[in-house]
């Protein structure tokens, strides 16, 4: 009882179909939690929603939390001080209306920083977080020039007091990592946590591809916008109330 070619193809097709099903089934699993030995996938995209109407003038809870979490020394000269997140104050010239908002790496879907990087050090992780692999970075700073949001900093001097989970060193470029070390543990970024406890509760973090997440629901039902949408970078950080 030998199987002919047609039969063989049918069986093969069935096997392929069941293999193809497997990743679909894992979708549900991954949306809940990722174990430490599982690689990140594009089934998720981490993002942040900033409600600028809640962002109070003079508040800098997110900035302080970021500096603390990532061990960004503030006792260095202003012109070389690392800055992963900053607050920007906008004033309407005609009405005098003043607005503040946090500005950091926007975790672009099409990141210009990665496009121009000659070494491949700047890259976008499968789950949307844009990072610098400092092992590869040569410190050319092309990415700093390319970033439309001025989100990146260069480490100018030797460092001695890095956080264990946030390695940083002289001669490399750095920017907001969306607290990747926390996200990989299933926690939220330090700025979001601080804003929710000490600030105006302006920041929401989550998986934009998970329809059940708060951020996805709000993005689907409320108005929000990118900064510089004309650049078509499809940013992972979006703003409301601009």
């Amino acid at each position, binding site marked *: 009882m030998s199987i002919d070619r047609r039969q063989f193809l049918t069986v093969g097709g069935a096997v392929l179909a069941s293999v193809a099903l497997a990743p679909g089934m894992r979708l549900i699993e991954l949306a809940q939690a990722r174990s*430490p030995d599982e690689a990140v996938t594009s089934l998720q995209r981490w993002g942040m929603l900033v409600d600028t109407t809640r962002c109070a003038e003079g508040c800098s809870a997110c900035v302080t939390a970021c500096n603390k979490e990532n061990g960004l*020394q503030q006792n260095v000269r202003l012109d070389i001080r690392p800055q992963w997140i900053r607050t920007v104050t906008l004033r309407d010239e005609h009405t005098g209306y003043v607005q503040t908002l946090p500005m950091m790496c926007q975790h672009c879907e099409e990141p210009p920083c990665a496009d121009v990087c000659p070494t491949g050090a700047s890259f976008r992780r499968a789950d949307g977080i844009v990072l610098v692999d400092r092992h590869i970075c040569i410190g050319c700073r092309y990415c700093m020039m390319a970033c439309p949001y001025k989100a990146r900093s260069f480490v100018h001097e030797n460092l001695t*007091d*890095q956080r*264990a989970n946030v*390695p940083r060193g002289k001669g490399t470029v750095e920017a907001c990592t969306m607290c990747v070390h926390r996200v990989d543990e299933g926690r939220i970024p330090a700025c979001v946590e601080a804003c929710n406890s000490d600030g105006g509760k302006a920041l929401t973090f989550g998986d934009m591809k998970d329809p059940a997440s708060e951020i996805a629901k709000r993005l689907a039902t409320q108005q929000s916008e990118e900064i510089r949408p004309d650049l078509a970078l499809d940013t992972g950080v979006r703003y409301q109330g601009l």
Partner: protein
Amino acid sequence: MAMNQKKRILGAWITAIVAIAVCFGAAYALSGGPDTPVPSPLTGVYLGKGKKCVAPVSVMRRYHMQFLLNQRTLTVHEGIRTKRFLLTNCVDCHADPKTHSVLGKHGFCASCHEYAAVQIDCFSCHSPHPQRLTAESAITLAPQHSRLAEMVKTTAITQIQSDPVDGPQ
């Protein structure tokens, strides 16, 4: 005369053969199989908190750099943070409880690399201190008073001591 010449040629041959044998022997000893003992400078060095390393000692001595290299790519690019070969995990275990560091004269990493004359670059970016200590918030806010800053000063971590650059950026 002819006899003398022959002797000299024979002598040269013997010297050459012995030299080649010595070279091969040395090369064999250096490349060594897994059973060849690795010379160890570890006297008076704190070895680690755990009873056993994540792999046999002979394997770790020879291959820890490959493990770390492989792990760094997995961690940075794919977010894989299994503890086995994670540098933070190595440091947590191997940091000397007195100096809280893997660097310094008797530091687990520094002492061996100094002995082997291998300059490592890991700790210009990575913290040589256990996670539990670097998690202290005081570091950033008041570096001159923090416990960690004090330790850095007192344990003479020359390799990573800052060397401020004031030139143009």
